[in-house]
Structure formats: C-alpha cells, structure tokens
C-alpha cells in the first residue's frame, strides 16, 4: 500500500510499504477514505517528539471502510467508521472510568518503559505518534490495522460526508474536552491561546457551554477572522500586549478560564521562549512553554487553566508561585475521545456543530509532503489539510 512515512526533521515521503493484516483477534483493517494532518503532526515534522524511527507511518486522524475483521471484532465489513486517535482496550481500570487516553493495555509492553521513565507512568497507545506511544502505524495510508476495534471506532451514517465527521477522530473532541476541562460557568470570560483547529473548536465548545465571552489569541489574521466568525473577540499578539489587554478587557479581574491550545512550540518574543527555542533545537528536550506560563499569569485568582496543547518534556522558569498563590486549577491531558464521540456525532447530525469551515485544502495522499510543508509554512491560509488516498492527483 501507499503510506506517508517519517524519515527525519521536515522529511516525510509517500512510499510503498507492506499492507497491514489482522494480527490480534480484536483487530480490524480499515481502508482509509479521508485522513487529516493534525497540528500535533507538525511536532513530529519538526522533530521535537522523541521516539520516532525512519519509516514510521504517520497520521492519527482518519476514517474509512471496514474491509477485514478479526474473530473478536464487533465491526462488520462495509461499515463506515471514524477511528479515535487514542487506542483503548475498554477493559482496564482507566477505560472503565472513561479515562480512555490513559489505557493501560494499548501500548505494547516493550514500548512502555520510555514514557514510564519520563512521566512516572506509561502512556497509552496512539496511532502514528512515535514509539513512546506504541509505534503504531498511522492513518495517512491506504490501509490501517486498528487494534481493539470493538472499542474505538464509531460507525457513522452514510448520509454524513467524510468532511462532517472526520474530526471526531481527534480535534473536535479535543476542543470539546478542552472547554470541559476549563469548567466553564455562565458569565465566564474564557481566553483561548491558539486559533488552530483545536483552539477554534474550543472557542465553539466554550460558547456552546454558555461562556459569556471568549477571547481568542493568535497572530495569523485569517485564523483570528475564523475565530471572530465563531463569535469570539480576538487579540493579535504581534500587535497587542496580551496580558494587559486581557486584564483591561475584563475590568481588571482577569479571565475566569484559560485554554492553552498551542503547546510545546509556542511562538513569542519573551526572552525565556527564545532560550527554549535554542534548547529545543539542540535537543535538550525542553518544551517551549511560554503560552502555559503566560496563561497562568493571565488567569484570575481561583481560575482554571485547561491544556489541550501537547507538551512532552520539561520546562524551566516555571511560575510555580503564581499557580499556588492564585489557587489555579490546571487540567490537561490527551483526549478521552471515546467518551465524547456519540454525543458529538449527535450534535453534528442535528446541525448544532459544523466543522467543515475549517478545511482549507484537500489533497491526494501522494501530495502529503506538500501538505505538511504548507500547513507548517503557510499557517495563515492552510488551516486544515485533508488527504484522500483515492483522489486523483491534479494534472
């Protein structure tokens, strides 16, 4: 089959690799119809996530048709499914309390030691996201082996086209959980750092959950415009002092809740962020945590900070005092996708949520490397790239 593979920093290729097959009883094989490039794929593209190996198949946002099932799969051939990026067994303690992204059984035993050493506990398995999270081949390919296919994949009705449901795999539930983790109350003002797909969906979710105001922060005019259309007020951090603006826009109180939808590769002009850029480049494994730090200072005392943005390592000069003295609640984590898929699919069917506005480019899988390059370099206009294995290349 054809698949998009990782070979190093800013080096992804479409190659022919072995087709997947059923290995374990609960597996299914999915023929991919649509797959997206995620903002977090850019962390892999930029080489800042450890545990990647040359030839790894990328992609964790995908959907398609069931073409083969193991004896213990509950799926049927021909069904159309969206596959959550988190691989979850459904039987362990964490899956049973719906903390699916903390599944204890989906990361193969021999791959668990790295994250257990780094974080104190092993991570769950994720599709196409380094060997720290299992080394599973991802969905930017013609076919994918999906383990525990009786737990993760959600069957979608035929009348909803791919573009309407594809984002159930990751970014829509991630934006939703980000807002949920911000524990939004009526009358709240919520600030969202980052108007990428997760940030934009977090804006939608925060408003749907009853936030009085949402303030979206970015530096790309087009992305800020998308946030504005969703009903957010905006701050361009290249034009404006963010903390001062947030304080003034809230009458000196500060925002009730903050959402960091940026993560480890923050832009920013603060000196510590520039030092972190250098550390990351030389591979010291430091996260650029300038948004996390700024959000801690911007949120009001007793407020909440929700972190859907990806971090992987350490940071220093962390304002621990602000966290404690202001009594901030911080909630973070990979998304428990399976907890949200049914509810969000219903909202899509009812027309309450529309995610298609996000898609700026649809390309054949063969043009995946161009998709990565442009999504990385032209962030203002390339807001979301969908790849289709079956699509004919433009002549």
């Amino acid at each position, binding site marked *: 089959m054809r698949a998009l593979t990782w070979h190093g920093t800013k080096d992804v290729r479409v190659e022919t*690799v072995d087709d997947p*097959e059923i290995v374990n009883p609960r597996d299914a094989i999915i023929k991919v119809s649509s797959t997206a490039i995620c903002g977090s794929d850019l962390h892999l593209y930029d080489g800042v996530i450890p545990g990647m190996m040359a030839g790894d198949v990328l992609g964790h946002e995908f959907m398609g048709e069931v073409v083969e099932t193991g004896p213990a799969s509950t799926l049927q051939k021909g069904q159309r499914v969206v596959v959550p990026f988190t691989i979850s067994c459904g039987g362990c303690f964490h899956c049973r309390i719906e903390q699916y992204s903390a599944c204890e059984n989906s990361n193969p035993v021999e791959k668990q030691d790295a994250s257990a050493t780094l974080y104190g506990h092993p991570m769950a398995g994720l599709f196409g996201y380094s060997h720290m999270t299992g080394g599973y081949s991802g969905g930017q390919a013609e076919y994918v082996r999906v383990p525990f296919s009786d737990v993760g994949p959600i069957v979608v009705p035929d009348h909803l086209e791919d573009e309407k449901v594809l984002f159930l795999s990751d970014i829509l539930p991630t934006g939703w959980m980000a807002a949920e983790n911000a524990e939004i109350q009526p009358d709240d003002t919520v600030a969202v750092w980052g108007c990428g797909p997760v940030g934009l969906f977090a804006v939608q979710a925060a408003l749907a959950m009853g936030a009085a105001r949402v303030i979206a922060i970015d530096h790309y005019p087009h992305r800020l415009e998308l946030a504005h259309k969703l009903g957010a007020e905006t701050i361009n951090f290249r034009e404006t002092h963010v903390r001062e603006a947030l304080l003034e826009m809230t009458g000196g109180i500060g925002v009730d809740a903050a959402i960091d939808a940026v993560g480890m590769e923050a832009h920013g002009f603060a000196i510590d962020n520039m030092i972190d850029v250098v550390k990351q480049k030389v591979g010291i494994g430091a996260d650029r945590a300038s948004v996390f730090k700024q959000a801690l200072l911007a949120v009001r005392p007793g407020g909440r900070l929700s972190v859907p943005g990806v971090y992987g390592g350490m940071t220093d000069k962390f304002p621990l005092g602000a966290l404690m003295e202001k009594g901030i609640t911080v909630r973070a984590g990979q998304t428990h996708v399976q907890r949200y898929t049914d509810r969000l699919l219903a909202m899509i069917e009812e027309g309450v949520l529309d995610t298609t506005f996000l898609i700026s480019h649809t390309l054949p899988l063969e043009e995946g490397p161009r998709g990565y390059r442009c999504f990385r370099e032209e962030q203002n206009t390339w807001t979301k790239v969908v790849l289709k294995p079956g699509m004919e290349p433009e002549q």
Partner: protein
Amino acid sequence: MTSHGRTHGALAAGIALAAGAIALAATQQNRRRHRDHPADDAPGFTARRDFGRYEVVGRSVTIARPRAELFAFWRDFSNLAQFMENLIEVSPAGTDGHSVWTIRAPAGQSVQVETRIAREVDGELIAWRSVEGSDIDTEGRITFEDAPGERGTRVGLIIAYVPPMGEAGRVAAKLFRREPEVQARHDLKRFKMLMETGEIATSVRRKDAARAAKMENA
C-alpha cells in the same frame, strides 16, 4: 500492617511466612543489621537494602478481573508461557506438585529449574521453591488480593534467586535484556493484558513481523 491485620489476618500471616521464607538467611542477616531502623508498611522488595547473595525482584499490578479467575489461570503453570517471555515451557514432574521450568538464558542457552509448591492458599497465594540440584536456586510467590472497589485484583509477584555465575551472570543477563527485574515487570503487564483484553498488545502491521520480533527476543 494494620490494614492487613484488620481485613485479612490469615492472609497477612501467610504472606509474612512466605516472605520470611524468601531469601531466608539473607533477610535475617539484614534484619539483624537493621535492627535499629523502624519498619514501615512498604513491600520488602522496595527496600533500599540488599538481600545478600539473593537478588529479590517484586512487582504488583492491578487487574480488573475476579481474584478466583486469575488464581485459576496462574495455578495451571502450563498457561504461564503465554505471557512470560523467557519461559519456554513448564511441565509437570512426578505427582507431588513438582514442575520443570525451561527458561531462556543469555546467548541462546536455556536452563531448567525443578520446583515444588511450597505453599498454596486457594484464591490467595502460590509459593514455589527450587529443589536441590536445580540450575538456579530460586523461590517465588504470587499473591492475589481484592483491590479496592471495582478495581479487581491486586496481583503481587516476588522472585528471589541466586544469580547463576554470580555477578558475571547478572551483568550478562542485563546485557541480553534478561534482567529479572525488567522481565517481572513486563511479564506481569502481559499477564494483565491477556486477562483484561484477551490478547497481548502489539504494534506490528503483519503477523510475520510479530513472529520475527518474538524470535529476536528468543
């Protein structure tokens, strides 16, 4: 051990007995040496001290399955090779609960250990000990306790052994990634996977890759 004393008096006594049997001479020697130190409630194998000529490894894992089911699966030693990577097979020897364990050793070698059941409490613990003349002087114990609430069963594994060829053997095992501490951790996690999900997770795309990986480890 107050929580044990309150809820599982007999079990606590059983565990204490088995723990006492583990690396007996070595631990007693250590106890004398550490007489002035107050004991705590942590499992013995997490202690900072060593156990003399015995290596002691221990691990616990919580498995969301009933205690009786896990005990029954483990009690049939022929099941163990399904999740213990270095175990080639366990076969019964004689009629009095003796078994012969064939275990992979560094550099393509294998060793055989004949064990007898030293103690067994139905649904709670199985302890075994190598008989005189085995390749390895070892004893071990697996315990099953109800975990809080709906969490299932807390399974504890302790193995004490005299490293074959002493320190050199221990270093060789480490080089070949056969260190018992790592093995115990991995084996228990595979046991958990098998019991909770019915399979052992792998990220390979194809069956032949799974077989190749297994041969590489073999």
